[in-house]
């Protein structure tokens, strides 16, 4: 899962990190292109694992079938969200809200413990940039070749390489757009439109729209999305404290930096462990120099750790000149044990506690979700009227929602007044799977019932025939004329 052909690292001493220095303070338009050098190592492997997991899920889920329908489908036309065995209705917006709260607290929790884990490994921006960079490297070559190619005047070869790269990007982007739309319009319908190319105009539009987004964000904008457009990048700092794991350069150990021959003991030449090879800068997707300390641009991808560890191995120095550590650990020379010991602290306990509570509420809510929902709406147009046979009639509309994936019949009855009954109704109603049935009922009582001009509470009872525990007892009012 590494870049298989990534070059062995050449130690280029004293290649200054001037290129990054120039970038800082530059405006968005005049940014210098960051040429990211590919890197392999423990953290790069983790990132590739997450690229595979998230993208297999994203590209794969729309193809999955469940109960003869698409397993995960946010069906906008039907206004129903299908997620495996569940069917969610607009009335279930509560669950969506809870899910958003869970996501937010999970983000707080993990940020407080280990910094920008999300940004470094799982954010779509990171994942697609990784994929697009991989394509770029496969077609245009490694970092040096890419820089040379961009400087070179336009030629047949340059044009060919650029065209190939952009075509490959466009294919990935369009497929991403297609997959995205397949979450909202059934994939089968989309596939059916593929051959005659008879997509609805809005489907085409959204495929292109999302595709273009992917293309520009992952191919062109890259680190600028994180630096200028991401709200999380701006406020993540408030979740940090001195015990948060961050990617740090051990200044005490590294400085004074400088070049030296391989295998030289740093102390003997009056230098620190940093050989100033600037590889940590070259591999950085946001183009910063981690040796200047924690910066808000750092997305926590740990590429510099992988790069530096490789260099330290070559120099026969211990690994970890750049490593995951905390502000406190660096200051107080803590080892792994003390760092782990400080994971539990009021901030993480509060975030974690709230997260656990909300998760439990979510699971409890899902487990106890009623498979039947009924809305009773009194017909307001006709309050009450006298009908043939000496009866008073009120009209109600019942919306019976069968939330399960099997058709069900329900018994409907009414109670609350003497002699109350439903006219012209067989007493039961069939509701297809995962759908709503609107039922108009004329409810009648004999003229001499109750006090004239009064408003009386009545109850509708709706019970599933196959399972009496699935029942709803819904109140409404019955008006009697003066």
């Amino acid at each position: 899962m590494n870049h298989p052909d990534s070059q062995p690292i050449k130690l280029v001493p004293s290649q200054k990190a001037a290129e990054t220095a120039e970038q800082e303070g530059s405006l968005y338009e005049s940014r210098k292109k960051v040429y990211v050098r590919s890197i392999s190592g423990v953290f790069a492997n983790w990132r590739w694992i997450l690229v595979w997991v998230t993208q297999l899920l994203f590209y794969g889920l729309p193809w999955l079938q469940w109960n003869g329908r698409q397993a995960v489908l946010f069906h906008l036309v039907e206004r129903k969200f299908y997620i495996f065995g569940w069917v969610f209705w607009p009335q279930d917006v509560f669950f969506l809200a809870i899910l958003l709260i869970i996501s937010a607290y999970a983000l707080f929790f993990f940020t407080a413990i280990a910094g920008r884990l999300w940004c470094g490994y799982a954010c779509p921006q990171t994942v697609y940039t990784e994929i697009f960079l991989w394509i770029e490297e496969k077609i245009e070559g490694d970092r040096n070749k890419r820089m040379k190619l961009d400087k070179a005047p336009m030629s047949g070869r340059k044009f060919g390489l650029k065209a190939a790269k952009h075509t490959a990007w466009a294919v990935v982007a369009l497929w991403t757009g297609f997959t995205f739309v397949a979450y909202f319009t059934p994939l089968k319908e989309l596939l059916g439109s593929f051959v005659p190319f008879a997509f609805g105009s809005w489907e085409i539009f959204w495929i292109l729209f999302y595709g273009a987004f992917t293309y520009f964000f992952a191919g062109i904008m890259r680190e600028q999305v994180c630096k200028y457009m991401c709200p999380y990048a701006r406020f993540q700092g408030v979740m940090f404290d001195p015990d948060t794991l961050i990617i740090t350069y051990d200044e005490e150990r590294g400085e004074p930096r400088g070049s030296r021959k391989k295998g030289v003991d740093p102390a003997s030449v009056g230098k620190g462990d940093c050989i100033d090879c600037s590889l940590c800068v070259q591999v950085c997707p946001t183009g910063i120099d981690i040796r200047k300390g924690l910066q808000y641009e750092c997305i926590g991808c740990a590429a510099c750790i992988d790069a530096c560890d490789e260099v330290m191995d070559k120099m026969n120095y211990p690994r970890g000149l750049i490593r995951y550590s905390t502000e406190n650990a660096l200051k107080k020379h803590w080892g792994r044990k003390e760092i782990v010991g400080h994971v539990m602290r009021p901030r993480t306990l509060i975030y974690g506690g709230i997260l656990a509570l909300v998760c439990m509420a979510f699971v409890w809510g899902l487990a106890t979700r009623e498979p039947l929902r009924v809305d009773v709406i009194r017909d307001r147009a006709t309050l009450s009227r006298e009908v043939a046979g000496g009866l008073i009639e009120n009209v109600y509309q019942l919306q019976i929602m069968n939330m399960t994936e099997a058709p069900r019949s329900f018994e409907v009855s009414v109670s609350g007044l003497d002699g109350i009954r439903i006219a012209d109704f067989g007493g039961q109603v069939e509701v297809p799977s995962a759908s709503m049935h609107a039922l108009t009922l004329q409810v009648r009582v004999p003229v001499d019932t109750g006090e004239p001009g009064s408003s009386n509470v009545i109850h509708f009872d709706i019970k599933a025939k196959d399972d009496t525990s699935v029942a709803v007892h819904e109140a409404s009012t019955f008006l009697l004329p003066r």
Partner: protein
Amino acid sequence: MKQILVLWPSFLVAGIAEMVFFTVVDPQQLFLFGKPVDFSPIATYSIGFFGFWLVCAASSLLTVFFQRPGEDINRAGRAGN
């Protein structure tokens, strides 16, 4: 940069507004100039999204416009004389 400042925050907020609005309101129950909306639901959602985006972008545009410090305006005025 200014374009990003106008278009991007409004895009984010429009996304949220779209979600909240259409969770609560069924596009089939909307009325347009007194007549029920007869577009397809996908079209209604899409138009809704761009409507929200437009409104939010207008607000962002004003924010960017008013953010211009007084000195800038004074200087521009002098330059024009």
